[in-house]
């Protein structure tokens, strides 16, 4: 019975091809728009997620406080209020996975006849773990290097290209601030951060070496910044609170005295960025859904016309034994079939356009199976929802009136 009805729905669709095609076009455009918008939205989300994952997750930094000399305030990380021992103490706290005191600045690098200015970060091996930074060539340095202030360096990809060109940098000696450093490893590429700064334009050296040979420190062991990684996003506020308490205690700050350090949540900025793109993709989807709604109304409109046109046919069918339910099923099937066919074409169209956008503009697009599934579910729903009223109208016709209809 259902098979026979599917055949009839097919025949009815074929009876007025132009009209069926135009009705379908509404769905094609609607579904196509949803697919394209979702592909672009998810692509943007994916791109942001990629950037965030290169930063490392659940990170915050503690900066040393400002100090004032003759009325001139230094700004954050200016004062010598944090030291390596603070870092070690933070590492003992519950919920802390990695702690990396860092000291950084920009220095000129020299290798042979080449030179290049880059960011130099003095830190401990835990820094690489916290930032989930891999070494693609060579090896990292260990705690012993930090203890004995060896002159070894890890360089980012950009530095490797600008300083060493096609040569393998591992084992080569370059100079930072007149001091010779042996390059022991090349870092994996991380690309741009959220500010657009090239994260691969970096040199990482042991903290003690940086303090003694490169930057110099006002007090031995003092650092400008400590990077802390919490075990989870949920643990972040708790860990930040306990770090504050610990540092106030260690720095002997009395009740009412201001903190002599600053804390910044790096993940928060990233999350707000991710939130923005998520909102954007929802917005895009919502706008596209409106066209789907319009497509659905198009189906309803045509189905209503079709019911009126076929009133006599409905009367004949009823006279020879169709139940209300049979008529309802028939018209509903027709609406769902138009909707489905439109959806299928829309899916294809959306896919082609999304790929074309990717090919032409290089914009990241993500085409997910779930998006296709959603589009199909929506098409079926739209077909049933907007087909229901006309189908019910058909089913409730009085057979006598319907037979008399000219």
């Amino acid at each position, binding site marked *: *019975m259902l*098979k*026979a*009805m599917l055949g009839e729905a097919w*025949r*009815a669709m074929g*009876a007025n091809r132009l009209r069926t095609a135009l009705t379908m076009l509404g769905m094609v455009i609607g579904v196509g728009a949803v697919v394209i918008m979702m592909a672009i939205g998810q692509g943007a989300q994916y791109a942001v997620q990629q950037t965030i994952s290169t930063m490392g997750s659940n990170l915050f930094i503690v900066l040393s406080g400002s100090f004032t000399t003759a009325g001139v305030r230094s700004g954050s990380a200016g004062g010598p209020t944090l030291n390596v021992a603070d870092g070690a103490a933070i590492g003992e706290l519950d919920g802390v996975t990695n702690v990396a005191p860092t000291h950084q600045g920009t220095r000129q690098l020299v290798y042979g006849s080449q030179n290049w200015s880059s960011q130099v970060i003095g830190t401990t091996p835990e820094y690489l773990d916290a930032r989930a930074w891999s070494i693609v060539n060579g090896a990292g340095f260990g705690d012993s290097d930090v203890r004995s202030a060896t002159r070894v360096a890890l360089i980012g990809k950009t530095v490797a290209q600008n300083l060493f060109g096609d040569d393998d940098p591992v084992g080569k000696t370059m100079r930072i601030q007149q001091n010779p450093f042996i390059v022991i490893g090349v870092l994996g590429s991380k690309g741009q951060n959220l500010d657009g700064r090239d994260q691969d334009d970096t040199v990482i050296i042991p903290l003690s070496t940086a303090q003694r040979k490169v930057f110099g420190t006002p007090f031995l062991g003092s650092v400008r910044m400590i990077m802390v990684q919490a075990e989870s996003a949920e643990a972040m506020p708790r860990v930040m609170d306990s770090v504050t308490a610990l540092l106030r205690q260690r720095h002997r700050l009395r009740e009412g005295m201001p903190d002599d350090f600053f804390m910044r949540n790096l993940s928060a900025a990233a999350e707000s960025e991710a939130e923005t793109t998520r909102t954007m993709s929802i917005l895009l989807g919502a706008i596209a859904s409106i066209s789907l709604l319009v497509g659905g109304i198009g189906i309803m409109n045509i189905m209503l016309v079709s019911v009126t046109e076929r009133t*006599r*046919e409905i*009367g*004949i*069918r*009823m*006279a*020879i*034994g*169709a*139940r*209300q*339910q*049979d008529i309802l099923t028939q018209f509903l099937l027709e609406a769902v079939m138009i909707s489905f066919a439109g959806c299928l074409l829309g899916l294809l169209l959306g896919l082609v356009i999304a790929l074309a956008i990717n090919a032409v503009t290089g914009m990241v697009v993500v085409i997910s199976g779930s998006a296709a599934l959603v589009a199909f579910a929506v098409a079926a729903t739209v077909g049933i929802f907007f087909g229901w009223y006309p189908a019910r109208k058909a089913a409730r016709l009085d*057979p*006598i009136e319907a*037979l008399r209809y000219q």
Partner: protein
Amino acid sequence: MTKPVIRVVGLGKSYATAAGLFPALKGVDLTIRPGEYLAIMGPSGSGKSTFMNLLGCLDTPTVGDYFLDGHNVAHMDPDALARLRNRTLGFVFQGFNLLPRMSLQDNVALPLVYAGVDKERRRAAGRELLAKVGLGQYAESLPNRISGGQQQRVAIARALVNQPRLILADEPTGNLDSHTSEEIMRLFGELNAEGITIVLVTHESDIAAHAKRQVRFLDGEIVSDHLTEQSPC
């Protein structure tokens, strides 16, 4: 005597109009036995169409009872009525009422779709009945390819496809010329000779003369009910 196919007792139907309740049918009694060939006659407004709609289970009466094949139809729900129309009755209309986009064979077999018969048996039945009305060679054609008289034959084949107890024909020759009308009436005569019960509505007395029994309606009541003197078949 055999059990009646149709027994109507005090059947009445009123319509609400602006001027109040209008009684289209005023308590009609009628019994039709198997194998009868009955013509219902009367001018427009006589209530014969209302009566036909009630007999065809397309409408329900305001008062009275209608026993079709022993079952009281007067208070059945729409689905049960649809089932009766499908299994027990066959309709032939004045305007043929074939579905224009379907082959003749599918048109004839359409009632079987609603009876839940599978495709193979529908095809076979469609072909068989088309052959019976002499149109076997047009099985795959569309209705607009054949003449009015031929379309009415297809409609009769459709009415027969579910082996109904009764065929209801509403002005079956109203849209046909006299020659074709004769052909259709001959077909009805043949079917009746095979034992099929036929009820015919017409306002033409020469058409009614083909039937074996004539019932005349006037103002919602039966005014005469008699056998035809000379049956042509």
